[in-house]
């Protein structure tokens, strides 16, 4: 719809062709009809009548299209807009009939017939319903084209979403199967075997869970927050084992949020960033705070660290979050917020806000 508004003349050849065809068809119909009935055929008047009929509609079509866009027959204002279109259809139809009738009468008057306002009024009243029908046909053609486009766009969006998700998925997979993460965790476990066999077993179990969760992941776009949290818990536990006292994690999750639906694999990259860029950089204990709150219709997720923060010259949007941003854009249009910025004290806060929706999926 935006596309058609950018260049008003783009659709003109098509409209012109359509209305010319319409005129020719009507002409043929009148000709056949009148020959059959045995009526005399007044060619100039017939030509003038049919073509003026079609081309005045041609001139009115952009207006009809504009009205169709402005007053869409969709919830929530379906009834109001229906009323508007009934009235607009009647007014336009009457205007049209009046104009085309005038042309017809003028042509006839050049042939000696008397110009009659009464005939005109009569014509308008007699044919207004037919004009309204045409108005509605234009409206419906326009809407069906819009729906087709929207359907096609949504197909494209869906396939892009899928590609992005699989990329996010792949990234998450790479994180767990990331040789660096994997071998460092295995190294940590090999040290724990000596010192604390119980802890070694626990860590090994968590690593296995992470790998299993990733391998089992079925590619759905949205998951309950709970499930994402499950995943994070294990990831964080392993990182805590690896980094010991240097990493403290604080969770602050609204119980209400547990069943909210969120994009799959949304939090993990944010948390990974917080640990990697925030905590590791800082010498001394690092803190990662993850909070999830509901604010009426909005779900607000925050990941906060106390590292040294983003370099002042870096892009505040955050490198590596492009993929996340694009995904959110496709899923929520403009209804989301993704913000990464330095805290006033130390470190970085990443904030995501998306519409709060309860997950109805069966677990």
């Amino acid at each position, binding site marked *: 719809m935006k596309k058609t508004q950018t260049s008003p003349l783009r659709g003109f050849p098509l409209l012109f062709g359509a209305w010319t065809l319409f005129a020719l068809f009507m002409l043929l119909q009148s000709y056949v009809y009148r020959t059959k009935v045995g009526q005399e055929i007044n060619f100039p008047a017939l030509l003038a009548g049919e073509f003026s009929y079609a081309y005045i509609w041609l001139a009115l079509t952009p207006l009809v299209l504009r009205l169709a866009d402005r007053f869409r027959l969709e919830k929530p204002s379906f009834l109001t807009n229906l009323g508007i279109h009934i009235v607009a259809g009647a007014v336009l139809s009457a205007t049209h009939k009046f104009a085309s009738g005038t042309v017809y009468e003028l042509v006839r008057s050049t042939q000696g017939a008397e110009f009659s306002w009464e005939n005109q009024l009569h014509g308008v009243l007699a044919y207004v319903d037919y004009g309204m029908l045409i108005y509605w046909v234009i409206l419906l053609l326009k809407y069906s084209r819009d729906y087709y486009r929207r359907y096609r766009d949504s197909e494209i969006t869906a396939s892009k979403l899928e590609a992005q998700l699989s990329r996010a998925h792949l990234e998450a997979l790479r994180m767990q199967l990331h040789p660096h993460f994997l*071998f*460092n965790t295995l*190294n940590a476990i090999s*040290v724990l075997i000596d010192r604390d066999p119980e802890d070694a077993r626990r860590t090994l179990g968590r690593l296995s869970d992470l790998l299993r969760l990733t391998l089992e992941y079925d590619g759905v776009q949205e998951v309950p927050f709970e499930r994402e949290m499950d995943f994070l818990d294990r990831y964080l536990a392993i990182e805590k084992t690896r980094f*010991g006292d240097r990493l403290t994690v604080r969770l602050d999750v609204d119980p209400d949020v547990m069943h909210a639906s969120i994009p799959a694999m949304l939090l993990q990259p944010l948390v990974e960033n917080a640990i990697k860029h925030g905590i590791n950089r800082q010498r001394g204990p690092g803190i990662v705070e993850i909070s999830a709150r509901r604010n009426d219709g909005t779900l607000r997720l925050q990941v906060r660290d106390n590292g*040294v923060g983003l370099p002042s010259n870096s892009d505040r949007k955050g490198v590596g979050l492009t993929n996340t941003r694009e995904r959110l854009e496709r899923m929520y249009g403009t209804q989301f917020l993704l913000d990464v910025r330095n805290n006033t004290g130390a470190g970085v806060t990443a904030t995501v806000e998306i519409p709060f929706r309860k997950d109805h999926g069966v677990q």
Partner: protein
Amino acid sequence: MKSPLRTLIVDDEPLAREGLRKLLSRIGDIEIIGECADGVQAIDEIRSERPDLVFLDIQMPEVSGFDVIEQVGPASMPLVVFVTAFDEHALRAFNVCALDYLLKPVDPDRLSVSVKRVRAYISGKRKDEVTEKLGRLLEDIRDGKKYPDRIMIKTPGRITFLSVGEVDWIEAQGDYICIHANGKKHLIRDRISEIEERLDPDLFARTHRSAIVRLSQIKEMQPLFSGEYSILLFSGDKLTLSRSYRDRVFDTLKQGGKAL
């Protein structure tokens, strides 16, 4: 009687350090003189403690194991055994330069082989060989460049890197050096002779016991009495070219006319 190997362990993960420490204690004749949790600490410790051997983790945040070698300089580096979880790029470089490395999780048998090799290098006095290998490694990592293109600047709570291309001149100030770059001054703890090693001699020259100058920054040179010269830089700073460095500077200027 061989003296124990004075050894430093560098890894950002406490468990990894603990593991190495434990395994090394079983080998014996090794004295662990310290553990470092990051590259900055490692640079300081290596400079001040001069260990015989460093176990150096490659992938550490911000200042990597390679940065440590670059900042300390291959010649001042002790013998190094690299430790890495997985890094194809690094492994390829180690193999190319025939340098010793350990993979995580660390295999105790493999570790004792590494320690034996280190002892062989030390008793065979083949340290120069290793220095050369480290130099090649850095070149390889830097895609063929012989000298680092950045200098690490440490300020409290933050580490930044200064591009060597911005450096105009450097002066020694006690235990520190002051780097003049683009009209700004950066004070770092380093020795002027050590930073001199890390700068391309075609571009920089020592002009004084306490100064290094980018040759292309020299605007004027005026002879003073006693064979010294006064150097005026484009930045407006005035320095002295002392007699002991005079000939070398003139040589470089003559050969390196292209660099100007």
